[in-house]
């Protein structure tokens, strides 16, 4: 075997190894998706699972209210560019005591011109507060049907955990209202 042949073989084998690296990084890119979810769950940061699931009312009673501390909760709404809705909070802020159950309202009106179903997606800022913001009931737990032109008041019952870190005294609860007829159904 001459030197040229040997070089060609070495080139081919190194190229194959490098292509493997490329495939590996492509896989890694996609693996970042589940990895990201897992990280969010472990750290509880902006965890969608917590934000979208209900806790039992009796947990509130177990906690007891901390009357010495007041946390401001702000309410915000937003709409994606598709769909045609009115959507706003009924109150801008509430001063709440950790451990006590409250109810807030949002007002939504279907302007799409037909009957439809919408799903609200919650978010909390700062996102590390996600683990300490609990909802016992929420209009965001299930899709909401609206008749053409219908306006409804949508309730959310929530409490702030007594274990909320002391440096947090202002939380923003926001909802984006997605028209499901214009998007694939929520998981």
């Amino acid at each position, binding site marked *: 075997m001459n030197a040229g042949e040997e*070089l060609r073989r*070495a*080139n081919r084998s*190194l*190229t194959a190894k*490098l*292509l493997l*690296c*490329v*495939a590996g*990084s*492509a896989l*890694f*890119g*996609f693996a*970042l*998706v589940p990895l*990201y979810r897992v990280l*969010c769950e472990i*750290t509880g*940061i*902006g965890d*969608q699972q917590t934000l979208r699931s209900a806790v039992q009312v009796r947990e509130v009673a177990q906690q007891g209210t901390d009357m010495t501390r007041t946390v401001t909760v702000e309410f915000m709404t937003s709409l*994606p*560019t598709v769909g045609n809705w009115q959507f706003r909070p009924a109150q801008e802020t509430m001063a709440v005591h950790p451990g006590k159950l409250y109810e807030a309202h949002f007002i939504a009106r279907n302007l799409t011109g037909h009957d439809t179903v919408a*799903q609200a*997606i919650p*978010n909390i*800022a*700062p*996102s*590390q507060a996600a683990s300490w913001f609990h909802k016992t009931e929420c209009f965001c737990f299930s899709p909401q049907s609206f008749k053409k032109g219908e306006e409804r008041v949508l309730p959310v019952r929530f409490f702030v955990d007594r274990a909320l870190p002391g440096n947090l005294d202002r939380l923003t609860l926001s909802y*984006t209202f*997605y028209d*499901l007829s214009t*998007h*694939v*159904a*929520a*998981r």
Partner: protein
Amino acid sequence: MAYTETVDAHDHHDHPPAGIWRWLSTTNHKDIGTLYLVFSGIMFFVGGAMAMVIRLELFKPGMQFVDPAFFNSMTTVHGLAMIFGAVMPAWVGLANWMIPLQVGAPDMALPRMNNFSFWLLPFAFTLLLIGFFVPGGAPAGGWTLYPPLVLQGGDSFPMAIFAIHLMGASSIMGAINVIVTIMNMRAPGITLLRMPLFVWTWLITAYLLILVMPVLAGSVTMLLTDHFFGTSFFSASGGGDPVMFQHIFWFFGHPEVYILILPAFGIVSEVIPTFSRKPLFGYEAMVYATASIAFLSFIVWAHHMFTVGMPLAGELFFMLSTMLIAIPTGVKVFNWTATMWRGSLSFEPPMLFALAFLFLFTIGGFSGLMLAIAPADFQYQDTYFVVAHFHYVLVPGAIFSIMAGVYYWLPKWTGHLYSMALGKWHFWLSAIFVNVLFFPQHFLGLAGMPRRIPDYATQFADWNMVSSLGGFGFGLSQLLFPILIWKCVRGGEKAPAQVWEGAHGLEWEVPSPAPYHTWQDPPSEAQIAHGAEH
């Protein structure tokens, strides 16, 4: 010079096929290098024309010339064209031309793939640019392609995504070629630690490329399936998260900015010693500094996302890891400066551009450090301060060093010396106007002017006008560059093999212009010894 190759033994190779077919079918590293460089030059002027539209619109407050959607397309496509069309192909072109010459190899290791990876680029950019003529106009959501905005683009959205796929495939192939060439094709006697720094920095860049370009390809594929196939990677309505796109994008994006700058470090590390007539100070330190910058570039990405609402620990981690990069970068700046210390300096165009690089890139590094301070970045994020930062590192950084490289090696390519006077005019006009153009953008950003807007509050008027004037001046001065190159291709004083008296390296052991085939026989011991004095 003792260039020992016998001409008649290879002379049937020395006449490439004539006409266009030569360029379509070539597998010669010098031809492909030339193609890449010419392509890069064209994209530099296409992207530059868009920059002129941007500065024209921003010359005065109020809407003057273009509508906002078109303005947004200008900033978006300007960014994509400059990064993927001008800077990256210029580096691959220089690698093609110089790496085989510098390591004593007869060609790149994978010549046919080399041809293919180049010819993907014209297709990619045609696809990107015809976006201007389809319903909805060219992409306008920013070069960073953040969803959900990018998903609202018109018909050009899938075209841009495919264009990015092609560019990615092209640069991955280019990177593989560089690695295989460097690892397998070095002439006997050229050990890793005797390689010129341009080769070293490119080797590290190539590894960065194959590690992160597939991640970019993955993230834009997810955008595509979100838009067309109902997945919800980044769509909150389906349980996805738009912030996740930013994480994936910047996991690619930050190493990408080092892909744009590491080869520049290599060029400057060769030009400064040549015109200081001294060996590079701290060769090995340069290699290790480059490698540590490349490593660190993987763990700092979220400094682009300080304001997305990360936990405190995250902010701290990304702030401190980002600041760490300043240490190896500082080592480099120190070494370049120390190389010049007590050297006998002369100021030909390559040296002038390298010196401007040294000063102005360092300014960009300092503004980077300011941006790395997480609490301060809440103020700076998405303002013109960021624009000033990355233009300082990219224009007088990456682009000036590409120019330094072209001015350094042009006589080797063409066999003619160019007009030093014209080169100096080009340098001084560029160096002055680039500061008039970008320095005021620091003030604008600190005063709160947002980036990516076609109109602005009147208190920003004065500095915008100054910046626009600098922009027009810079744009016009660049016309001197192709004129000079064209004249140098056509004729001029005959260049010797050793173009610059202080230069070391195997490329100076072959005649000028470098013959179509070089190093068919590996360089001799003496040539290596003469060349490798770093």
